[in-house]
Structures are given as structure tokens and as C-alpha cells.
């Protein structure tokens, strides 16, 4: 008689889900926060928030299933908004932090070294987009969401999501067409 495979626990299922989706979730979190450190805090709090909400719905037992895309992205956004409200006094300082992130070459993407310059240009161009457009581009391109799902996650209409995406791509094209700028080039000059 063959042994039955052990059913996956909720923690194992969430770990698998987190390992698979965390790079794109963190990328989105970085679009709605001012520093890499804040983005990590926001992502962690959002995952815990969704876990607790699902646990509550399941009568206090471990949650069934893993988060839906709209559910987790909405949670990330709300936690980021809460963080922003709580820490308005830190805004000036955080603006400096994001400059450091840029200067130190903290990047959104992994990429072969030969594309490093281009990747830096794209990261820089993305940073220059308005937050509303950055959110949509990130969810569409790297989150793989439909405009309907994006609308649901960001609490906007599907048409608004689609038009923001179009504006964002046009802005990126213009920005990258100009050749962009390598924000960490100066670091590598000896």
C-alpha cells in the first residue's frame, strides 16, 4: 500500500505562494513607498493583515487557500497609505532616503550585467512617473493583472486603469527615448 502524501499545511502553502509572488509584490510595494526598507515593512504587514483577515473568516483556524491578486495588492496599498499618514513628519527625511537608494544603485530588477545601463534607465524612468501611473504599470506588466483586476486592487474603474497604463507607457517611451540617465554612473567613475 502506498503512503498518502501529507496534505500541505496553510503555512507551507503560504510559504510557497510567498516565494513565488514576493518579488512582484515587493516591486509594487516599492512603487507606493519612499524607500526599500519601508517597502519591505509594508509587504510584511500586508501579508500578515490578509492572513489574519482570512483566519478570522475561517473561524480562527488557519486560512484556506492563498491570497487573490487583488486582495494582496489592495492590502499592500492600504498599509502603505496608513504608513504614509502615520509618518508624515518623516516625509522630508524619506525623500532623502529615496535619493540614497537611487545613488547607491538599489534596483527594482534582476538582469544580466550586460543590460545594466538599460535596466538603470528603466528604473529611473519608472521612478519619475506619477505614483498612480507607476502602480498601474507595475500591476499590469510585472503583476500580470488584467485591467479589471487592477481596477479592483486600486479601487478605480477598468477604463481609468487602461488609460493610466497608456499614459504611463507613452511617458516611459518619451523618457527612455531621450536616452535617459544612469543615476549610478557617477558611483562607478574612479
Amino acid at each position, binding site marked *: 500500500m502506498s503512503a498518502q502524501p501529507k496534505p500541505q499545511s496553510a503555512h507551507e502553502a503560504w*510559504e510557497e505562494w*510567498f516565494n513565488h509572488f514576493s518579488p512582484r509584490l515587493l516591486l509594487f510595494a516599492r512603487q507606493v513607498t519612499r524607500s526599500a*526598507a519601508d517597502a519591505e515593512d509594508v*509587504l510584511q504587514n500586508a501579508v500578515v493583515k490578509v492572513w489574519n483577515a482570512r483566519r478570522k473568516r475561517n473561524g480562527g483556524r488557519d486560512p484556506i487557500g492563498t491570497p487573490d491578486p487583488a486582495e494582496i495588492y489592495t492590502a499592500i496599498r492600504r498599509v502603505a497609505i496608513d504608513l504614509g499618514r502615520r509618518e508624515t513628519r518623516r516625509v522630508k*527625511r524619506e525623500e532623502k532616503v529615496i535619493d*540614497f537608494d537611487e545613488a*547607491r544603485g538599489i534596483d527594482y530588477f534582476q538582469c544580466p550585467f550586460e543590460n545594466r545601463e538599460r535596466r538603470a534607465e*528603466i528604473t529611473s524612468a519608472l521612478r519619475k512617473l506619477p505614483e498612480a501611473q507607476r502602480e498601474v504599470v507595475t500591476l499590469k506588466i510585472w503583476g500580470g493583472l488584467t485591467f479589471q483586476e487592477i481596477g479592483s486592487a486600486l479601487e478605480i474603474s477598468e477604463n481609468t486603469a487602461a488609460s493610466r497604463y497608456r499614459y504611463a507607457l*507613452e511617458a516611459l*517611451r518619451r523618457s527612455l527615448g531621450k536616452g535617459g540617465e544612469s543615476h549610478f554612473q557617477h558611483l562607478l567613475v574612479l
Partner: protein
Amino acid sequence: MSRSQDKQNEAIQRLEEELLALEPAPVSATLTRDVLAALGAPQEEVSRATVDVVPAQPVRTRVWSGLMPAAAAAAVALLAVWFTSGGDSSVAPEAAASAEVSVAPQILPNGLQQVAFDTQPQGFEQGPLVRRDGKFYRQVLHQYEESVILVDPHSGATYEIRVPREEIQLVPASFH
């Protein structure tokens, strides 16, 4: 649709494809471990997460990777010293020791130079300030390149070994 609109759409499509080809950077093992711990995962899953997930590339590694040519130059210089001094990796330890004694006086230090190329405030990830002896200090990272110049008095050949270095200095913080 006009020709210019076609061109614009093509350009946007190309850009979309280029963006799709970029993979978001992985999250750090620390973050994964913290998230699992926050969910109350059993300890063995939390500790497994620290080894299973590929950590994000540290910032300093990325910065220093730009200095790889300097490190390579240092390696080449060391090899050059080794070959010109008649070094042979196959010699017995005793012979190698005697070779070192005879080689050492041939290559003499002839200069030391430190060139700073970047200074940046640190510590926003762990907190802007550190406390020592009841006082607050800012952390400032200094990155510089150290060059050691060696000369072979017999042949007149010079060798330069360049090493990238960094150090964090604590600067007293003022609140006035």
C-alpha cells in the same frame, strides 16, 4: 490610422516587450523569514526559508562589482610579481620558503596612495543615528581606492596593486 500613429504604437509595443522581459529583483531571505515568523509558521519552516530563498544582491556587491577591473589589475600585478621572481607552484615547501627569502628584497614598496571616490551618509536602513558613550553619531561611508606601488630595483619594473576599500566613520551628530 496615420503612419505616425502606427510608428508610435510599434514603439510602445516594443517597450512593453522590453519591460516584460525584466524580472523583479528577488526578496531577501531575511524578509521571507520575518514574514513566515509573523504568520506563526513552525520554527523549522522559518529556518528553512533562510537557506531556500536566494537573497537580493547586496548593494555593496553591486557597487563593488564596478571595481572588478581594479581587482583584476591587482591580481595581474601579483601574478606578474610571481612570474618575474621565478615562482613555481610545484616547488617543495622548504624550497618555496627559501625562494621567498631570496625574492623579498627584489621587490620594494615605493609608494602608497589613497584616492577617495565617494562619501555618503549611511544608516537609514537601520536608523539614521547610532549611540556610543551616551552621544549620537551619524554613520558616513567612505569608499576609496588604495594603491601600493612596488619597484624591482634590478629591472626597474614597477608594479601597482590597487585595492578597493570602504570604512564607516562615526561623525558626532548635532541637533542645532
